[in-house]
């Protein structure tokens, strides 16, 4: 599922940034959240557009990682025939949703930036991450580990990559680059990754 939102006003001069994220083993890091902040100048607030959804299907959250702009409401939709008890203790957003079976859904407003791990109190193995970003330029990497961000104003920008398994402080790496006035810009991130826990929630 693809979440999309559009930038508000675009400045006169802008560039496209193509970021590729791979693990040190060469595998694309699917779902890695790539976000761009303007360096040395304020980053404009993003404006949520449309509906953001996180589905519960087959006792799993989908998608595993999502990125939403601050102020977005995310709809949690239960497709399973069982109840789910979605929660998060994250500082960015604490909430609990008790979702009945079959198509029950509820929306939650995420009004602070930060990573919000999502769990289900009934099913320990269910886990998902929602990155609430305070920039208009953020996206999760596709199956080939690519992210294309358009219309980023030229100048110095900081490109951040976040993934729950990324082995780095805050599970995040960032790099500041100069964008040319025009044309496409591409960046490549190669980062060490943790192995995903085999059966999160069952312990050892």
């Amino acid at each position, binding site marked *: 599922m693809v979440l999309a939102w559009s930038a508000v006003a675009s400045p006169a001069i802008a560039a496209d940034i193509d970021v590729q994220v791979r693990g040190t083993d060469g595998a694309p890091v699917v779902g890695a959240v790539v976000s761009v902040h303007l360096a040395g100048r304020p980053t404009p607030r993003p404006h949520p557009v449309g509906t953001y959804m996180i589905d519960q299907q087959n006792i799993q959250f989908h998608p595993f990682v999502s990125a939403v702009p601050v102020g977005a409401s995310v709809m949690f939709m239960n497709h399973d025939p069982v109840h789910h008890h979605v*929660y*998060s*203790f*994250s500082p960015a957003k*604490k909430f609990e949703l008790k979702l009945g079976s079959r198509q029950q859904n509820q929306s939650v407003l995420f009004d602070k930036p930060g990573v919000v*791990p*999502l*769990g*289900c*109190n009934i099913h*320990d193995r*269910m*886990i998902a*991450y929602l990155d609430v970003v305070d920039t208009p330029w953020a996206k999760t990497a596709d199956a080939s580990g690519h992210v294309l961000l358009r219309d980023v104003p030229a100048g110095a920008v900081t490109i951040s990559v976040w993934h*729950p398994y990324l082995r780095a402080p805050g599970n995040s790496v960032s790099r500041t680059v100069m964008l040319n006035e025009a044309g496409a810009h591409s960046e490549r991130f190669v980062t060490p990754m943790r192995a995903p*826990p085999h059966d*999160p*929630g069952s*312990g*050892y």
Partner: protein
Amino acid sequence: MQFGRPFGFRQLRTRLAVLYAGLFAAGMLLVAGLLYGAVVHNSKVQVRQELIANGTVFDRLWDQQTSQLRAAAGLLARDFGFRAAVATNDRNTVESALINLRRRVGLRTAFIVDIGGNVIGLTDQRQMQDASALSTKLDEGVTAGVANLGGQAHKIVAAPIMAPALTGWVVFATELDQREMRALERMSAIPLTAAVYMRRSDGSWSSADADARIADPSVSRFIEANWSHGQPDDIKGAGAIALAKPLPVVAGAPPAVLLLQYPMRLALNPYRPLEIAIAVIGIFGLGVVVLATWRMARSITLPISLLDAAAGKLADGQLASVPVSSQDELGRLAATFNRMSSDIVEREKRITHLAFSDLLTGLPNRANFNQHLDHQLRIVERRGGRVALLCMDLDDFKGVNDTLGHPTGDELLRRIAARLSEELGDIFVARLGGDEFVMVKAFADDTTAIDDLARRALTAIEGPIHINEHVLETKASIGIAIAPADGSNNDALLRSAELALYKAKEAGRGTYRFFEEPMNALAQARRSIEVDLRHALANGELELHYQPLFHLGADRVGGFEALLRWNHPKRGSVPPVEFIPIAEETGLIVQIGAWVIQEACRQATQWPEHVRVAVNVSSVQFRRPGLSHVVLQALQNSGLKPDRLEIEITESIFLERSDSTLQLLHTLRGLGVRIALDDFGTGYSSLSYLQGFPFDKLKIDRSFVMPLLARPGAAAIVKAIIELADALGMETTAEGVEEPGQLAILKRHGATSIQGFLFSKPVPALEASQLIKSKFKLHAA
């Protein structure tokens, strides 16, 4: 007895006992050793199995405890409220929840450490530090195992707190302390000891409790060598079997082992009664063996000891015998020994008998006599009293031997001996040799007893003795000496007795005489003659006189008989009858005789050719070797023609060894020397001598010549002798012619020559030469 060098037992018995006891003891020790080895091996195997089993039990317990704790920790870690409290950093709630949990599970230590290393639920600063450090290790994935908390080894189990991502761990820790170990020990079927050790950086091991004692070096070495493979083994030097079981540790923590120890002493405890039983049986058995061996050895060695003692006795010359108590080798040995012993004693008796008996008569011999007399003299010397020695000599025994032969003489001696033994009863009688008997009798002081004894002895041998067809009447003379007066030792006493015997003989035969001192003086004189005679020759005191033999046919001196004279420097002229016997007895006659032959030959060379010289040769000279050599030497030295030398012998030279005598006579004859038979007609000689050897001359003894005028029959004998000599081609010389009447008869009967005072007495050499020159006119009546 000398037995084995290393021990040198004096008794075979001890040796046997020690040998068998030693063998038994060695056997017992071997059995006990093997048994002990088997027991030890067995118990080791058992203990090892037990240790392995306990190790397995421990593993299971450990796992069980781990999963229980993990379950409890997991339960808490997943509690929504608890997670909410942790995630929202609600410290109070979390701590209260931990306290609640400790109570519920019964744990002393339960805490939370988050991924940032923050610890909740601990108060001890050191424990908090260790716990904080734990977070990174837990993050690496090992969430159960041994870890160090504040210096004390703990078993920890951690459960992750997923909220929903990993935010930290609930950690349960149980101290691996004494209490825990004792609990573990109680689970075991055998009384083993359990302890946890942790490896130090230097490779040694220390106990995992708060003391952190460094393990005993042997234990430390054992763990270091065995902890990785976890097989039970002996702890060298600690007398224990142990199993070092590696414990899972939280990653990065030092290695830890659970050491299960089992002292061998305890393992062997169940076998203690068996060991005691073996020891008791061994000691008892040893006692029995020693006792049995001692007894058996006695049965073997008693006969040997008896043999040993008996052999010692036998060696000392006593008759010894041992009881024959068995049929075996020892029994046979004893029997053989007894036979040997009695044989030896028997043989010794016989040897003694032979050594101390006279073979001919069976009487004690000279050696025996010497011993006996010596013994008696010693008694006299010590206790007083007197001993009589009777020396008896048969009268004319020589005659018996000469006329009747030695076998008859021997038989006579045997009969005499038998008579003496019979008659004298317990008186000591011995035969010293020849016809010489001695009797020894101790007495108090009355010599009449000795008179009586002498008479009895003389009477005993009187009376006719029938030997073959002969009837012999024997008489004897006895000389008696009495100790200590007549001599205090054997030789002196015997000499005195012999002197007395000599006197008895002189006094007429068939009688006895006691020794008297003058006899001894005579003997002294004899001895001094003997001494002086030894020097006489060298000192030139000897001289030859010559008595002419007048040849009747040629009417002139036909020869001289050389006669020895001794001019003693002090005594003057010593008569030959005094010194010739002594010279013969001492053997000096050989030396003197040689000189006589030399001197006579030398002298004869001064005389005309027809004059011979006659030299008397003693039977002693005949017995000694070298006579023919002396004669040859004398002839060569003087250059005298051999037929001018005439050797005069008497019949006595035939008394012994007549074969060799004849041979010597032939040798002399071979030299060309003439041989004359002196003193013919006296003695016991028979005519067979004349047949046996062709004498050149017979000298008719003076005992036939002297009675010629007095007794009518005498002339007949002389006539017969001369005719006999003529018939055999021998010359005759009549000795002792002193009367012209005698000369006339001799002349008439045809004697070759005469010798006697009628013509001349013996004269010195100088006068002899003049005698030859003188013209004589002999007047025959």
